[in-house]
Structures are given as structure tokens and as C-alpha cells.
């Protein structure tokens, strides 16, 4: 069993059949009897005061049911959108999170800001009526870049946030870092920009609210990575309905990349309005709305200083970052540039002293929150650009300088100066494999050959580390998280021996329906086609925390392992009774329970049947075979690896071609190598996209989003990418029962630094992301 469908097998994805034959059920595929359509009136201005709102004409338009506003929600006692993680500033004060009503009250603060919901019988009628809503806006000064927003004299976005500063946070030992820098043999100093990106999930966000007057229950279908978190927040903070009267269903969801973690205005409004109007209301974002109002990612301005001794050993690291959080603090916006960023600045290295300070600034732009990697790509970019530039400045080979600084394989557990304890790793091994695969020794010859053709060849490293499997509840609680970050699993045997697993982890492309089924198949000997994974419906699955931060397998998978432990324990009692042996003598392996030293045995299916038809059954055991477990991780997991990118630049046009890409990642134990490789490919595409072409641009003058469609926002396409060479090494995680680390974000975390190191190696000078053709051309031509 285990060899074909168990742990370690590249089982084809069970879920793909329904997607390939067009039977996936995404939100917009769902239609309810009597359904109406919602269309949001949005601000055309970056910053304005609403002097007057008049829906008289809109309400007279054909098919219009209602036009709902922020004041209507306030009157119904609906609370504002919240931020779920409280950050404490250097001075001990809590972060400033100004009230964020789901529909604007009095002011609009970014282009696309939700002002009103028009509900009509058809979408066309709703859109027609939206044009009839008359709003008298008084434009106010705006600011879109974080450096400008935090500068003196910047336009004030919120009356209760002086200087637009949400928080000024620090971590590490400032004095020690500065001491190292002031006395070091060499200090590398750089300003680095981590460009802003827009998530672009294939399925845009959507919500469908349905109210049952008989039961007083609201059902909210929404594109969520974590339906229980949606339910909890909408109930406890927004007051849409009591938790037991609110059911949240995230059906098939077409990608998230973080952007569907958050509790947004639109689903909050739909959940409230369906009860208010007693009508099903559906809203599906148009792509333009997705560009404007999905939470964006990254957007850091950083100054970094890295101190080295004469051998290239890092002595100290000091990082000052300004993070753009947009106009309001989104659900986890405050955690991303702090505890998911500063804590990873140690990289794979021994760094005696680290200090990081982060100022988070409000701007008149869409909220910024977690996006594939969330803080860790920003950290890796800073660490891996700085060590590479340091190597260049000191004339040390970039691979060699990393090796001199790697944490040794026998140094675990390794405590960093920025509150992380790495459990396991082997960084030099990944580096060696990557260098060998790409033939690093042959690079100079390849560079010379390119030069003969008038091309500039470059090679670049990224030895990244990330913290996944977020996270021990007590630890994150002490750092300001408003929730616990455990996961749940329920393993239910049916009387005929098939299994349904209910998991709090949500799958929106990751392949849980296959990976989780492989765990059951491996551990309990159930044929994989007899295992169903159920997720995404708070009416079916136990309370769970959802999918983000590459946590599903490390935390959700571990919860399944814990439930399996309970199944095994109970099964042993049943087997002992049936086989007339003592429980201590029952041995279990892959779903077969046998009496030690005999040929007497029972299969898991036989035991499950016995549990539901308990005619010959132990007196002290409950009937049924259905176990639930909750798993709270002991630590983060720390996937790491080395990626090497090789590029060739055409100096006449500035075009960069990626010639080769080797990724050697340590994900610990691997359940399904094919899915892991696919995850790495996807992550790399996103990371390469950010480094080479993706860039969210707001116009400073008008505050308009200039990159509001695919005509101007450049997504990576297959022909932009090379054939990736993906390898893994496997040092098992020591803190979870599966020994797994997480692979979903690695590519996106690692790729930008590797690619920019390769491009700047080719150019012989530093440029910021994205390395667009014109920027590269200017650098190549010395302009």
C-alpha cells in the first residue's frame, strides 16, 4: 500500500479530475433561488471627503432592491473590519489601527474604496443603477508611497494617526549590532526596495450570502482560505450573526496566495445585507476590482548594513524598513513586516548581532497584507542581496562567503538573535548539490562564450530560510496574535471501511485531497480511492484555522496524525477483544492489527465494521470509529535551501533570459514529490514574476492605480520561464510527527534574490526590482 499510494509516492492529484472536466464548483457557479446581485460603488479618488450621498435615482431604477451604505451598517450595529495581530511599538504603545468600516463613512481613502452596495435582480441592473448614485466628493491631498507618507508634512490620512505611522517596531540588540558595524573590517550598506505586487488569483474574490428566516441562520459562501476564521471574525467582531447561526462555506477556490485569508468588506457586507433584505445576494469581483481591492503584497523601503570580518564572516546586521500597509490595517497586515520578517533576518548564518526596526506607514492605497511568503521573501531578499553584495565588495566568491557563515549541521537546535530556534537543517549540503547541478565551476567559460555573442551572463545565489507551520499558539499569543494557530482533524471511518477526513486546512490549489489521503492510506492501509477529504464548510468540519504560511501539512497533517493515533489506540482494544489477546500484545502496521508472535490478525476495515456493528465488542469501548484531534505545533518549521539562477542579458535591449535555474530545497520528509515539485514551480514563477516584471504602480500625482489591468500589470507566463531543475534534500523536522517542513512558499521566497543577484552579477552594478528591460538596458549602457 504505502509504496503506491502512501507517504513518498507521486500520486496523481485526486482533485484534478473535476477541475479538468469542468466540474469544479467555484463560487460563481453557485446560484440560489431568488438570488439578487450586488455591485459595489467604489471611490474614484485616492482621498476624499464624502459631502453628500444621494441614491434617489438609483433606487428608482429597474430591478433595484436596495442601496446600502456605511451609515446603514453602523445603524445596524455592524462593527468595523479588524486587524487580528497587535504590534507594540518601541515606546510600548500598541499599533494604531484606525476604524475601518466595511462601507466608507464620511471619507474614502483609496481608489476602489467600497462606498455602497447596490442590490438588484440582475447584475446589469445593479451596474446601471450604480451609475445613478450621486456622490459629492471633496478631494483631499493624498500620498501613495510609504517614504512620502512618513515624511514630515505628509497629507494626514487618518485624524487619529499622526504622521501616518501605525507602529515603529524593533527586534534584536541595537547596541550590539551598531558596535559590530562601527568596528568591522568591512561594512556593506545598501538601500533596497521590495516592490509592491498584486496577488492575481485565477478566481477573483466572491461572496454569496443566504439567509434562512426559519432557522435565523446566515450561510456565507465566500472565497476563503480559512472559513472558520471568517466565521469567528464576522461573528465576534463585526456582529453579523452569532457564531452558531453563521455558516461559512468556501467551496472550490481558485488560488489565494494569501489574498483570501483576510476578512474583507465585500463578504462582510453580503453576509449582513442578506439578512437585512432577506434575499440571497451574490457579488463576484471583476478583474478590475481585484486589482483595486485585493490586499496587495510586499512594498518595503529598506536600508541595511551588514558588517564582516576580513574573512567574510558576518559580525552584525542592522536593518531599517519602512513598510507600506495601505490605507487600513488588514487582517494580518501588522504581523507580516514584523514577526514574519524581522525574525527571519538571521538567514542560514551565524550572526552574532542583529537589529531590525520597522516603521509601518498608512498610504492612500489598497491594504497590504500577506502574499505568498509574507515577510519571509522580504527578509530573504535583504539577507541574500546583502551577503552577495558584501562578497562582491570583498572579492570573495558568493558561494564561499555563504559557506563560511552557514550554521553547522551539528549546531541544532540553533537559537538566533531574533527569537527563532531552528530545529534542523543542512545548508552546506544543499549548496554543494546546487553548485554541482548547475556546474558552477564551468560558469566562467559559459560567461566568456556569451561575451563572444555580445551578451552579458550572470549567476546568482539565494540561500533562503523560512519559518512555516505557523505556529505555537502560546508563542504567537505572546507576540500579539489574536488567535491560536493550531489545526483540527477528524478521521471518520464509515462502517464499510472507507474514510472521510474533515480538516480545518482549506485547499485552494495545494492538493490536500491527495496529500492528506496518502497519509491515511499509508498509516491505516486504506486504498486511496476510499479516502475522501472534506474541507471548507464550517457546517461540516471541526473548527480549524485554515491554510496559509505553508502550514497545512506541518500543522493540519500533524492533526490528522494525532487523530490516526486515537484510531489506532481504539482499534487495538477492539482487535485485542476479538482476537482474544491483551491490548499490549497487539501490534499495528499499515492498517493490520496482529497478535505478536502469532498469525492472528484483523484489518482496519474489519475493525471499523466491528465498531459500527458491535455484536462481539469490548464492554469498555464506545461503538463507532470517528476520532477528532487538535494539534498545536511545538515550533515553527524551517524549510531552507539554495537556489542558483543563471541569466543572459542582451545589453542592446535590456532583455533578461533565464537560462538555468537549480533549486535544492530541504522540505524535511515529503509525502508527494510531484505535488512538492509543482508547488516549487509555482512559487518560483511568482518570485521570478516579482523580480522581473510584476510591479504595482500608483500614480503619485493622481493616486490612481496605473497597473490596473493585464495591459500594464505584467504577469509571468510560461514562455518567460526556464525549465526548472528542482531537487530536494531531506533533514526531517524534529518537532512534528510527520517530520515535514512545508513547501508552498519556498519558490516565491527564494527566487527574487537569486534572480537579482544573477542579473546584477551580469551587469556589474546594482538595480532594484523589477528588472524591467529599460532598467536593465540603462544599467548595461551606463545611463
Amino acid at each position, binding site marked *: 500500500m504505502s509504496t503506491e499510494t502512501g507517504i513518498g509516492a507521486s500520486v496523481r492529484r485526486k482533485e484534478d479530475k473535476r477541475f479538468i472536466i469542468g466540474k469544479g464548483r467555484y463560487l460563481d457557479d453557485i446560484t440560489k433561488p431568488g438570488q439578487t446581485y450586488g455591485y459595489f460603488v467604489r471611490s474614484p479618488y485616492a482621498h476624499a471627503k464624502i459631502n453628500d450621498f444621494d441614491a434617489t435615482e438609483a433606487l428608482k431604477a429597474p430591478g433595484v432592491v436596495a442601496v446600502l451604505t456605511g451609515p446603514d451598517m453602523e445603524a445596524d450595529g455592524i462593527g468595523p473590519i479588524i486587524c487580528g495581530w497587535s504590534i507594540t511599538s518601541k515606546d510600548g504603545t500598541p499599533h494604531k489601527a484606525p476604524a475601518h468600516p466595511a462601507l466608507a463613512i464620511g471619507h474614502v481613502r483609496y481608489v476602489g474604496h467600497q462606498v455602497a452596495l447596490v442590490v438588484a435582480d440582475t447584475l446589469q441592473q445593479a451596474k446601471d443603477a450604480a451609475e445613478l448614485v450621486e456622490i459629492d466628493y471633496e478631494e483631499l491631498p493624498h500620498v501613495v508611497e510609504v517614504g512620502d507618507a512618513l515624511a514630515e508634512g505628509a497629507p494626514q490620512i487618518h485624524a487619529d494617526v499622526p504622521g501616518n505611522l501605525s507602529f515603529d517596531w524593533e527586534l534584536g540588540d541595537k547596541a550590539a549590532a551598531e558596535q559590530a558595524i562601527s568596528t568591522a573590517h568591512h561594512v556593506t550598506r545598501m538601500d533596497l526596495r521590495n516592490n509592491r505586487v498584486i496577488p492575481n488569483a485565477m478566481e477573483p474574490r466572491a461572496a454569496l450570502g443566504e439567509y434562512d428566516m426559519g432557522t435565523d441562520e446566515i450561510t456565507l459562501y465566500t472565497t476563503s482560505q480559512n472559513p472558520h476564521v471568517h466565521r469567528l471574525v464576522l461573528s465576534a467582531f463585526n456582529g453579523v450573526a452569532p457564531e452558531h447561526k453563521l455558516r461559512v462555506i468556501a467551496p472550490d477556490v481558485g488560488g489565494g496566495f494569501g489574498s483570501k485569508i483576510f476578512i474583507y468588506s465585500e463578504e462582510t457586507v453580503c453576509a449582513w445585507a442578506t439578512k437585512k433584505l432577506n434575499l440571497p445576494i451574490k457579488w463576484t469581483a471583476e478583474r478590475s476590482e481585484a486589482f483595486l481591492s485585493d490586499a496587495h503584497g510586499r512594498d518595503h523601503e529598506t536600508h541595511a548594513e551588514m558588517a564582516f570580518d576580513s574573512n567574510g564572516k558576518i559580525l552584525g546586521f542592522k536593518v531599517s524598513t519602512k513598510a507600506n500597509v495601505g490605507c487600513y490595517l488588514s487582517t494580518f497586515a501588522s504581523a507580516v513586516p514584523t514577526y514574519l520578517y524581522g525574525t527571519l533576518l538571521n538567514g542560514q548564518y551565524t550572526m552574532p548581532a542583529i537589529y531590525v526596526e520597522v516603521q509601518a506607514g498608512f498610504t492612500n492605497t489598497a491594504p497590504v497584507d500577506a502574499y505568498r511568503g509574507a515577510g519571509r521573501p522580504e527578509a530573504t531578499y535583504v539577507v541574500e542581496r546583502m551577503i552577495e553584495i558584501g562578497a562582491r565588495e570583498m572579492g570573495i566568491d558568493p558561494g564561499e562567503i555563504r559557506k563560511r557563515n552557514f550554521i553547522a549541521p551539528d549546531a541544532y537546535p540553533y537559537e538566533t538573535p531574533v527569537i527563532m530556534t531552528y530545529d534542523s537543517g543542512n545548508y552546506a549540503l544543499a549548496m554543494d548539490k546546487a553548485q554541482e547541478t548547475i556546474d558552477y565551476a564551468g560558469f566562467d567559460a559559459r560567461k566568456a562564450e556569451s561575451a563572444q555573442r555580445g551578451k552579458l551572463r550572470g549567476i546568482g545565489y539565494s540561500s533562503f530560510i523560512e519559518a512555516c507551520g505557523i505556529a505555537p499558539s502560546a508563542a504567537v499569543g505572546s507576540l500579539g496574535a489574536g488567535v491560536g494557530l493550531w489545526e483540527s482533524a477528524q478521521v471518520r471511518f464509515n462502517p464499510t471501511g472507507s474514510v472521510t477526513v474533515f480538516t480545518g486546512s482549506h485547499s485552494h490549489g495545494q492538493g490536500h485531497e491527495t496529500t492528506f489521503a496518502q497519509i491515511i492510506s499509508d498509516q491505516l492501509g486504506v486504498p486511496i480511492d476510499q479516502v475522501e477529504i472534506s474541507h471548507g464548510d464550517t457546517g461540516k468540519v471541526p473548527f480549524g484555522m485554515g491554510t496559509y504560511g505553508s502550514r497545512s501539512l506541518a500543522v493540519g497533517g500533524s492533526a490528522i496524525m494525532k487523530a490516526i493515533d486515537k484510531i489506532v489506540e481504539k482499534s487495538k482494544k477492539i482487535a485485542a477483544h476479538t482476537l482474544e489477546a491483551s491490548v499490549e500484545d497487539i501490534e499495528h502496521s499499515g492498517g493490520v492489527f496482529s497478535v505478536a508472535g502469532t498469525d492472528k490478525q484483523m484489518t482496519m476495515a474489519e475493525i471499523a465494521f466491528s465498531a459500527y456493528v458491535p455484536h462481539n465488542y469490548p464492554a469498555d469501548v464506545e461503538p463507532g470509529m470517528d476520532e477528532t484531534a487538535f494539534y498545536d505545533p511545538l515550533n515553527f518549521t524551517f524549510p531552507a535551501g539554495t537556489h542558483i539562477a543563471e541569466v543572459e542579458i542582451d545589453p542592446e535591449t535590456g532583455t533578461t533570459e533565464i537560462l538555468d535555474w537549480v533549486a535544492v530545497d530541504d522540505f524535511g520528509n515529503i509525502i508527494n514529490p510531484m505535488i512538492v515539485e509543482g508547488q516549487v514551480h509555482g512559487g518560483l514563477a511568482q518570485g521570478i514574476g516579482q523580480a522581473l516584471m510584476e510591479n504595482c504602480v500608483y500614480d503619485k500625482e493622481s493616486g490612481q492605480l496605473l497597473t490596473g489591468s493585464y*495591459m500594464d500589470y505584467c504577469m509571468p507566463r510560461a514562455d518567460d520561464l526556464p525549465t526548472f531543475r528542482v531537487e530536494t534534500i531531506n533533514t526531517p523536522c524534529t518537532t512534528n510527527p510527520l517530520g515535514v517542513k512545508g513547501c508552498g512558499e519556498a519558490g516565491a521566497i527564494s527566487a527574487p534574490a537569486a534572480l537579482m543577484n544573477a542579473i546584477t552579477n551580469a551587469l556589474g552594478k546594482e538595480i532594484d526590482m523589477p528588472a524591467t*528591460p*529599460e532598467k536593465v538596458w540603462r544599467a548595461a549602457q551606463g545611463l
Partner: protein
Amino acid sequence: MYEFNYKRPSTLDEAAALLNEDTVLLAGGQTLLPTLKQRLAQPEALVDLSAIESLRGVCPDGDQLAIGSMTTHAEVAAKATIPALASLAKGIGDAQVRNRGTIGGSIANNDPAADYPAAVVGLNAVITTNKRAIAGDDFFTDLFETVLEEGEIITNVTFPQPDAAAYMKFDNPASRYAIVGVMVAKTSNGIRVAITGAGPCVFRQTEMEAALSSNFSTQSIENINVSADGLNSDLHASAEYRANLIKVLAKRAVAQIDG
């Protein structure tokens, strides 16, 4: 989109009779439909030309290649007997656009970043409408402007077979329109260099034409200074960068012809 009426005449005369200031011709719809979806236009009616069979087809005729205005980019890419033209068509948009978009629709729209204008001017084509024949050089007047009058419908575009031609394009990485596209052609009435994408409208680079006429080689345009004055500048490319691309792509087109 706003509501509109939809008409699908089967003859050119019927189509012409339906045209007025409130109606719009629908060819492949690759620009018009997104515009309608974004509610940026509100025509009373669309007049769909797709039922008029005579407007479709790639017809080589001696040293001429006549292409019906409703011929899709994909068809041109597959059937055009002028390799530079086929290759240009193959590089437009993506497969979906090429299977819907038409040559007539593209040139009538005259998007400054479209590819076909470079072929029409660079290959010295003649555009035939239901009313007259127009020289390619006279057809495009300004940003999204042509000499077409109300009620005028393009029926075909006729390309004289060049002695040699090459089209080089630098894609906008997002939209894959031309940031700059350069058609260099040796034609029966001289060397032509047509530039699209770089300015508000396709134009001929006469200095390069003169230099290449006396000596058709990359060296002869090496020392030409391409001015950035009047060129487009946007999020993706400054005028200065476009000026550089004009020269680089022209040289590559010449090299391809020579090669």
C-alpha cells in the same frame, strides 16, 4: 456593458446602409468588446461583418497578396505568402486574439502599438474600401485616427510582394503589444522602414531608408541618431529607450534580410 442592438448583415451594401454615428462596426472585437465591457462606449448598435464571406481570405495573385479585411491574424500567419507579414501576424497578442482579431479591424482602429500598421506602411500596401483605394502611406493619420470616413468599410488590404522584408518587434511584456515594431522592406519602389509602437502613429524612418538605399547594411544605420523627440513615453518604456529600440530592431531586421 450597456445594452445595444446587434446586426449581422450578409452583404457589404447592407452593412454600409446600417452605419451612422450611433453604430459601430464589429470585426474581430478584440478592442471593441473590452471597451464595451468596461462601459467606455455606448453604441446604439453593432454591425457585425462576420457574415460577409467576400471579406475573408488570403489570396495571392501574381506579385500581389490580397487579404480580406475580415481575415483573422491566425489565418494571415498561416497563409500569407510574404514571410515577414506571416511572422508579424503570428506575433500579435495571444492565440485567442489571433483567432478572433482581424486585419481590417486592427488597421481601422490604428492603435499606436498595433503591429499591422508597420506592415501596411512598410510593405507599401493599398487599402481598398467600399468607396475607394487608399495608399498605405496616406491611411494612418494620428493616434487611433485614419482617413476612413463615415460609412466606409475596409474590404481588403493588398500587399505587393517585396523583394525581401523583415519585422522585428519588442513586446510590451504585459500586453504584448509592440513597444516598438520595425518593418524593413526592399520593395519595387525602394527601401522602406516603418516604425510602429514608438510614436503616436506609425511612421517611416526616412533617414534610415536613405542610408539603406545607398548601402543596405547594418553599418549604414549604425551612425544614424534616432531622436526621442515626439516618441511615446509610458510606464513600460521612455521615449529615449524607444529611440534605442528603433535602431536596434532596424539593425536586426536588416541583418535578418542580409542573413
